[in-house]
């Protein structure tokens, strides 16, 4: 298990991505899978950066674990901000015409569709969001 603690701002996203990519490369993760994981990091960490401590700032922990049979990576995002379950949001209507289309909720929806498991819990004053991706 490896983890990184960073400031919960969007400027930290490249650092978190590089940290996770380093672990994925050691597992010889296919490029497409890696890009999907990087996209999920962008969606989830930007949510934390925008909402967890707003208007203050705080820190966030990102933990990477590898499980076997099947080989998978489990990434956990932890913050001490306001309780917020991004998964509770209703899925967006992806059949709307361009004029009716908004972008709200699309990021989380993309994460749900591309990861093998996504879960959220609020425990001991922490938002704990976990994604799992088979490699």
């Amino acid at each position, binding site marked *: 298990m490896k983890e990184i603690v960073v400031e919960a701002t*969007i400027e930290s996203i490249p650092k978190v991505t590089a940290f996770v990519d380093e672990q994925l490369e050691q597992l010889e993760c296919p490029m497409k899978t890696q890009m999907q994981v*990087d996209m999920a990091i962008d969606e989830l960490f930007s949510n934390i950066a925008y909402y967890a401590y707003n208007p203050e700032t705080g820190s966030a922990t990102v933990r990477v674990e590898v499980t076997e049979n099947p080989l998978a990576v489990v990434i956990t995002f932890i913050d001490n901000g306001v309780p917020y379950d991004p998964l509770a949001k209703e899925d967006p209507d*992806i059949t709307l015409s*361009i004029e009716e289309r908004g972008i709200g909720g699309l990021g989380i929806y993309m994460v749900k569709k591309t990861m093998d498991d996504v879960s959220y819990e609020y425990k001991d004053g922490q938002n704990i969001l976990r994604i799992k991706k088979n490699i």
Partner: protein
Amino acid sequence: MTITKNTENGMLTLALEGRLDTNTAPELEKEIGEDLTVDVQTLILDLKDLEYISSAGLRVLLASQKKMNKQGNMVIKNANDMIMDVFQVTGFIDILTIE
């Protein structure tokens, strides 16, 4: 992200390289805001060297498509597998013109 632009005869081509995400989408938004004048009839986004796209990038594509619907057309070219999946999953495949 690197944006390479080329304009000729009312056709603006923006070639994107790198990642179109929370941190880089504002760069594309700014570029399009500056370059997408009324004389642009065709906007081509060449994604050959774009690695991935997140919803922040989709937001800019949606706004650009809406703008181009009023003055011409927009075409997405050379999107990789991961990006095509994103277009598919989000239904963007039906609202964008993808070659």
